[in-house]
């Protein structure tokens, strides 16, 4: 078992006030938990990603709106992953022996994984299905968490994962997150201060004071854990 510890909130990072007050974010997280806590708990168990991380991604990505985004858009849904890549990402997870039995059961339930062990193309209807969206979102997130660039001697850098999840791996922000630039932006503060404004705000909403993870692991610790 490989244990890594993430400390929140990150010193000197503040969730943007424009995103909402601490009370407002707390209310949003409570609502997400009320609506999707069962699926988040299930996804957390299947992926070994803490519930507080999954609920926080949902909060920042969609505010808990299962149909967030334009109707039919390739990233519509709770965790806003891109369905263009989802089939390949699920195929990889299966082929590399990483897919948990619980994930297989859910994907089979909705026909994404068929009896022959094949993954079909992921549709917009799949994306706006909360259970599938959270299941697939946690798989995609987990694939990024396990990349070499996400970890250093200090453990897992969730800031890097957030940046790549939000902006992709290959653009300017992705290269900075994957530590391919000089100087390296190897702290959450350095990365947040040197990437595009949207990704910067995303890191602060997730890891900053009064941000989603701060609230999920303090005010709502008794219900989210």
């Amino acid at each position: 078992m490989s244990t890594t510890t993430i400390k929140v909130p990150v010193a000197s990072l503040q969730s943007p006030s424009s995103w909402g007050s601490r009370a407002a974010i707390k209310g949003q997280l409570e609502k997400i938990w009320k609506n999707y806590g069962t699926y988040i708990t299930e996804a957390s168990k299947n992926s070994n990603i803490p519930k507080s991380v999954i609920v926080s991604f949902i909060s920042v990505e969609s505010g808990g709106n299962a149909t967030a985004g334009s109707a039919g858009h390739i990233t519509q849904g709770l965790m806003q992953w891109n369905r263009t890549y989802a089939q390949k990402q699920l195929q990889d997870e299966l082929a590399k022996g990483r897919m948990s039995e619980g994930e297989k059961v859910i994907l089979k339930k909705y026909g994404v994984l068929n009896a022959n062990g094949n993954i079909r193309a992921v549709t917009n209807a799949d994306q706006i299905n909360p259970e599938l969206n959270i299941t697939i979102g946690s798989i995609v997130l987990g694939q990024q968490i396990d990349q070499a660039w996400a970890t250093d001697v200090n453990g897992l850098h969730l800031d890097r994962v957030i940046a790549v999840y939000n902006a992709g791996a290959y653009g300017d922000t992705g290269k900075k997150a994957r530590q391919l630039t000089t100087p390296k932006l190897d702290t959450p503060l350095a990365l947040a201060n040197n990437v595009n404004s949207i990704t910067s705000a995303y890191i602060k909403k997730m890891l900053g004071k009064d941000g989603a993870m701060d609230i999920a692991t303090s005010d709502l610790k008794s219900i989210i854990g």
Partner: protein
Amino acid sequence: MKSNKTIWWIVTGVALTGIVGGIAYVWYKSKKYKDAKANRNIQIVNTGV
């Protein structure tokens, strides 16, 4: 001066070592990635800072 046969053995030995090492490296990386999910244990600590 080394004979052609000796040189052949050295070159072959280096090449085989490289190939075996490469295969072992790919296998190790693949296994590490495979096991990473099942072994994942992320603890979140709120420091209140």
